[in-house]
């Protein structure tokens, strides 16, 4: 594969995007790809939006994804999907967690959480929408929501030859391997 593929993971501080992107980039680099991953630290822990950008291919230069260049965007929160849609490539895919986290202006009653986001996104792009948090809770651990989304993402990426379950085993806390693998499989089932 000579071209560079671009993946964006977007969400809100504390949703576990960092671990998901770590597993993703480890898997890709072990498969022999050149990988660059970029994230913005700083004020994200205080309720700001967070984004992780992963680029891989034979040779990657820029560590960040340009507008209209993302092959897949995984949104851990649906308003974040809306915020980042202009980064999606024409024909790119979205994986959207049907989950709302209001921002401070919304909580203060100054702004309204936009209505009809999912309809809008499904109309504009090829998107898989599901409730990752509920799936994780049904499996018995709501904290595996990020791995549910990772499962959906790797399915949407469709990169052969990577044993994702092995990468997960090596990157999650000891004793939590099996629950995370279940979460990963449940996520993959959400993408056709």
């Amino acid at each position, binding site marked *: 594969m000579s071209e560079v593929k671009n993946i964006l993971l977007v969400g809100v501080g504390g949703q576990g995007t960092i671990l998901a992107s770590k597993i993703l980039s480890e898997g890709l680099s072990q498969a022999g790809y050149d990988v660059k*991953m970029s*994230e913005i630290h700083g004020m994200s822990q205080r309720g700001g939006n967070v984004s992780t950008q992963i680029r891989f291919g034979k040779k990657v230069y820029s560590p960040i994804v340009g507008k209209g260049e993302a092959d897949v965007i995984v949104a851990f929160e649906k308003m974040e999907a809306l915020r980042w849609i202009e980064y999606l490539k*024409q024909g790119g895919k979205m994986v959207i967690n049907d989950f709302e986290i209001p921002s401070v202006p919304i909580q203060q009653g100054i702004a309204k959480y936009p209505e009809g*986001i999912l309809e809008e*996104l499904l109309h504009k792009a090829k998107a898989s929408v599901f409730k990752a948090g509920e799936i994780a809770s049904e499996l018995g651990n709501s904290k595996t929501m990020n791995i549910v989304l990772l499962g959906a993402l790797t399915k949407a990426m469709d990169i052969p030859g990577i044993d994702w379950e092995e990468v997960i085993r090596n990157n999650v806390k000891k004793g939590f391997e099996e629950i995370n693998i279940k979460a990963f499989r449940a996520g993959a089932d959400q993408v056709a």
Partner: protein
Amino acid sequence: MKQLMTGNEAVARGAYEAGLTFASAYPGTPSTEILENMVQYKNDLYCEWAPNEKVALEAAIGASIAGARSMAAMKHVGVNVAADPLFTFAYTGVTGGCVLVSADDPGMHSSQNEQDNRNYATAARVLMLEPSDSQESKDYMKLGLELSEKFDTPVMLRMTTRVCHSKSLVSLEDRVETALIPYEKKIAKYVATPANGKALRRKLIDRLKSMEEYSNHAEINHVEYNGSEVGVISSGVAYQYAREVFGEDVSYLKLGMTFPMPMAKIKEFAGKVKKLYVIEEMDPYIENHLKMAGIPCIGKELIPEMDELNTDIVRKAIFGISTETIQSEKEAVVRPPALCAGCPHRGFFYALKKKKNIIITGDIGCYTLGSAAPLSAMDTCICMGGSISAGHGAAQALKKNGSDLKVVSVIGDSTFFHTGINSLMDVVYNKGNSVTVILDNRITGMTGHQENPGTGFTLMGDVAVEVDIPLLCKAIGMKEENVITINPLDLKATDQALTAALAKDEPTVIIAKWPCILKKFSEQDKKEFDLTPKKCEIDQETCKKCKSCVRTGCPAISSGDQIIINPDSCTGCSICKQVCPFDAIREVK
């Protein structure tokens, strides 16, 4: 086996592999993780958090003079604080190799300004290296220590946010121990009196010549020749953007060493191409060097002089092309950062907001978010430690001019230790009357929880002596009754302390002491503060929807058809309960 590492991890690894034994830093985004990553090598080297960047660099200078390889790391504005020793250190040179890591923040992701610290290299005349990815971050750190010893100069390793915080693949090597260089007394070299300084100044000029000679032949100033039509000169992460946008068909001069600039190599490269672009972030640093040498090039007339670059910006600027994007008419609501649910600063700022006829001078830390609506309880934020001194100046000027406005200066614990102590001495010594509030949340919060001289622990995890802030205030001359410690989650006590302090015409200090809610609590924290988990809940039948609780700005509280406290994020700090006029909020276990 290659490993994915951030630039910051790679710098720490490079220092380790190069046999460095001393590292010091003050935390600051995007540089913080460099020293955090040094700790894993603590069996082989020593590392510490300094109270500020000047102290960090001076300590690294001392380690170098003592014969060890050393480094200091800081964010771009930290170099301003450390500039005093830097300029003279450029004169004296080193014994053990010494690298100053400057992590610039183009685009101001987490900074109060945007400054291009490459200008420091030319101003101080220190050798500068600019990595563009993690492998180079490691390699240049090692090379920097070698070149520092070879040319007898401090070396600046200039990073930027995207280099610091992007991961790419790095090949690891083993550590090579470097023996301490035996100490010799060198008064003429290290005592910068005017007489010695003049001699050192001449040596510095000679050193520049040999460094430029090296720069012209250095492999890290690398030419990739792909034809004579177009040439591109670039450095740092801007090179990565340029390389991607211009592709395989143009020629590149990728600069890894940008001071002294390899002017002979640049002239030769410029002579081989018909059209020459300079692609760089922020200032026209490379471009100005070319223009001074009479080399025509295209740079800042197309490429923006502010904000960080990316491939979109470079492509649009050079080729006028934008990638087609999917647009939506719907707009995502902004998601600004806010003080966390349970943050001890919230109670303090809520009480402070109620005070009239005051100017609030603020400082740098999480608590700068006290300036955000609905609290809006801050009027200024300039630089680390500036709250107390700017507040003092304002208070004296107001008083002299007969104004009845009073001043409250707000500063965090780590920032107080950084440079706030000097400012408080100014207030006491010069008989000021501003109110100084030290928000002591028992940790350096904003940068992600680093130890400091007040926390009782060091970077390497050892138990440390704690600064006794009340005793320190007394030692610099504050009256005992004018130094009071309060719990900022107790609104009544906070209000009373502020009222009493504002009524006085002499220096007062209020220490608002409560640990950061995100902190990993120490045994001492657990003993000193009631940190048992609690939640608050709104009784919907009693609630009159007056939104008093919403106006605390707590992100756990949502205002819709009902006012609701999200039990997952509430920590039971009880600020909302205290402000509710209808007793509709109760604590639940």
